[in-house]
């Protein structure tokens, strides 16, 4: 007992009386115990069970709860801001590239759809089926398009314009702008001659650049008039139609009444000399039309495809081939399938790299913070507490990277769309999901380092200091 300090330092702010301890302590140790009690206002009230009988632990909510876990993890993350930036960079790039890939693919798909709607989705063509020909024999049409085919299909719902097209066999004669036969000149190639009904131009979305298109009246009268495709007119040297220039097919002259362009669906008309159907029948014994071009309302494709052959020949509708636009959804699915393949490849690689980055840095951080881990263990942290802290840290880092990456990705998609005059299309669920995906990557990447941290023995960890 020698050397034990006997003096009890009594501080005025806390007296035994204040604490309700009115009985006088009889022994020094008794006093010491009371003093201890003063220091410990509420010693752990027993709650829950422990492995050791009688071992007291604080209420579960007081012992390193989720709130403490998150707070400690936040301090761990915030301790090294520079490293944090480098750590999340991989995830930011990974998530960002996923969002950009998906966003641009969706935007592009929407863009393809829009173009498709504008040209192809409103165009239907009907032609007679042919037999034979596959083995090199002569082909023969199974049926013929009636001359009044445009009037017949115009009665169908969804049909806006219709016109017949036929190619005209003009025999071994030249088409020239002047009736001069110059034997020394090389024989020029003649443009193709087509015959159409009066409203074909509207049906194929062509436009008149000079003069006018012929109408059904020209055909009925068999007038010798032609309209030139833009390139055919250039080739023949016809630039103006006010003076009613003529061209010669063989030795017969035809008056040029107009020049046309456009016609996205029948680009061959740009190089053609086009005459009325009636004129072709009278002058060149045109026997049949090749094709019926129909312009339809958007979305009417399936209906027109089904009804047009019946309207043309109720007895044998199966003898016609109809080319109608595919349904919107079919188109979109095709585009989406392509997009998904790209997305999986690119995003997968990027996320793998991001995850490895987090795992690497967290592992490094665990090794660096051995002293802290040892200290926490000495202060009563269980292995689970330590592992939890590191897992939460890497999940938060991943989540942070995911959020920043998704935000950057959205900005890139919007920026590119604005620059290209596209409509930005991005599924909001993709953006939010990618941010969460960052957290999942953090969880996966942080598991191994966290287990390493939990396995650290406090003795060895404490030896080195912090």
């Amino acid at each position, binding site marked *: 007992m020698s050397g034990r300090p006997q003096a009890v330092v009594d501080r005025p702010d806390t007296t035994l009386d204040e604490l309700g301890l009115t009985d006088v302590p009889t022994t020094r140790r008794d006093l010491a115990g009371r003093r*201890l009690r003063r220091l410990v206002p509420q010693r752990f009230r027993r709650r829950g069970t422990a492995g050791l009988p009688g*071992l007291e632990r604080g209420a579960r909510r007081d012992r*390193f709860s989720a709130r403490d876990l998150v707070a400690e993890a936040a301090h761990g993350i915030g301790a090294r801001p520079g490293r944090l930036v480098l750590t999340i960079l991989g995830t930011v790039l990974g998530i960002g590239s996923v969002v950009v890939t998906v966003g641009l693919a969706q935007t592009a798909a929407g863009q393809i759809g829009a173009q498709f709607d504008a040209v192809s989705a409103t165009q239907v063509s009907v032609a007679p089926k042919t037999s034979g020909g596959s083995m090199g024999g002569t082909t023969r049409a199974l049926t013929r398009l009636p001359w009044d085919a445009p009037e017949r299909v115009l009665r169908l719902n969804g049909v806006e314009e219709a016109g017949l097209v036929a190619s005209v066999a003009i025999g071994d004669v030249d088409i020239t702008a002047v009736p001069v036969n110059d034997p020394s000149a090389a024989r020029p190639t003649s443009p193709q001659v087509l015959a159409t009904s009066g409203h074909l131009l509207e049906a194929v979305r062509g436009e008149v650049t000079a003069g006018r298109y012929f109408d059904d009246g020209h055909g009925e009268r068999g007038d010798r008039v032609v309209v030139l495709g833009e390139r055919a007119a250039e080739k023949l040297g016809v630039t103006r139609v006010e003076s009613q220039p003529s061209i010669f097919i063989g030795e017969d002259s035809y008056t040029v009444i107009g020049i046309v362009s456009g016609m996205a669906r029948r680009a061959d008309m740009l190089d053609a000399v086009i005459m009325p159907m009636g004129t072709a029948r009278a002058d060149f014994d045109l026997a049949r039309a090749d094709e019926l071009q129909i312009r339809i309302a958007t979305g009417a494709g399936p209906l027109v495809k089904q009804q047009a052959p019946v309207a043309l020949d109720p007895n044998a509708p199966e003898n016609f081939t109809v080319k109608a636009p595919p349904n919107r959804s079919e188109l979109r699915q095709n585009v989406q399938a392509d997009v998904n393949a790209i997305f999986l490849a690119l995003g997968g690689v990027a996320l793998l790299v991001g995850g490895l980055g987090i795992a690497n840095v967290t592992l490094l951080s665990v090794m660096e913070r051995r002293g802290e881990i040892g200290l926490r263990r000495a202060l009563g942290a269980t292995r689970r507490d330590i592992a939890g802290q590191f897992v939460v840290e890497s999940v938060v880092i991943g989540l942070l990277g995911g959020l920043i990456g998704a935000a950057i990705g959205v900005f890139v998609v919007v920026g590119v769309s604005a620059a290209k005059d596209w409509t930005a299309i991005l599924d909001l669920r993709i953006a939010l999901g990618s941010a969460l995906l960052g957290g999942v990557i953090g969880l996966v990447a942080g598991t191994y380092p966290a287990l390493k941290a939990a396995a650290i023995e406090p003795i060895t960890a404490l030896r080195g200091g*912090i």
Partner: protein
Amino acid sequence: MTVTEAGARPQDGPETEEIVRPVAAHPVVELRDLTRTFPGPVDALRGVNLSVESGDYVSIIGPSGSGKSTLLHILGLLDRPTSGEYLLDGHPTGKASEGDRAALRGGRIGFVFQSFHLLPQRTVLDNVLLATLYSGVPRAEREERARAALDRVHLGHRLSFTPATMSGGERQRVAVARAVVASPKLLLADEPTGNLDTKNSAGIMDLFDELHADGLTLVVITHDAAVSARAGRRVRITDGDLQEVS
């Protein structure tokens, strides 16, 4: 108050639901024939018996390699004995689960290390609060108790400082505040003045005296004669054997 014979002490009574259990129903520390053998084999501790009563101030002295650190690790529940039993505050710990040992560490032992072990990026207050996280101190009391503990080591005016800006003596005082904030039964100090100059050492030893006077049980491991002279009771460890020094 002496090194006891194994099994001489009566078994503990049943636990009660009181806030404060009866004082000195059992020793804070009781080692019974405790040995610790490392692969080699090296006998770091050979059949050690030691009893530390509540309110004792014990210093453990000995040369390097004598088993001081091993004894500290065992006492701090950072290592398990090879044989024998260690009762901490009446609880057998040798075969206890890791979770129970962690709970005992957090709730009943306060550590003071030679190199302070303060988190450099956290404030003084945060460093002290760290000890309340794992020991079950009710959340509402944590900050109040941390402030009280820092007041007690006379650092109440430095709550928002980081350890890097403080002197060694101040840092060790923060470490002491952290060790006592969760109201442990036992304060274990491992060379607490090893990194301090004479003046700061004296300050820490004065602080230990104050804590002891308030009833705290202290075990200080040191090779500094001046430090061990402050303790009421001195134990020398030589080649794994413990001897009481009068």
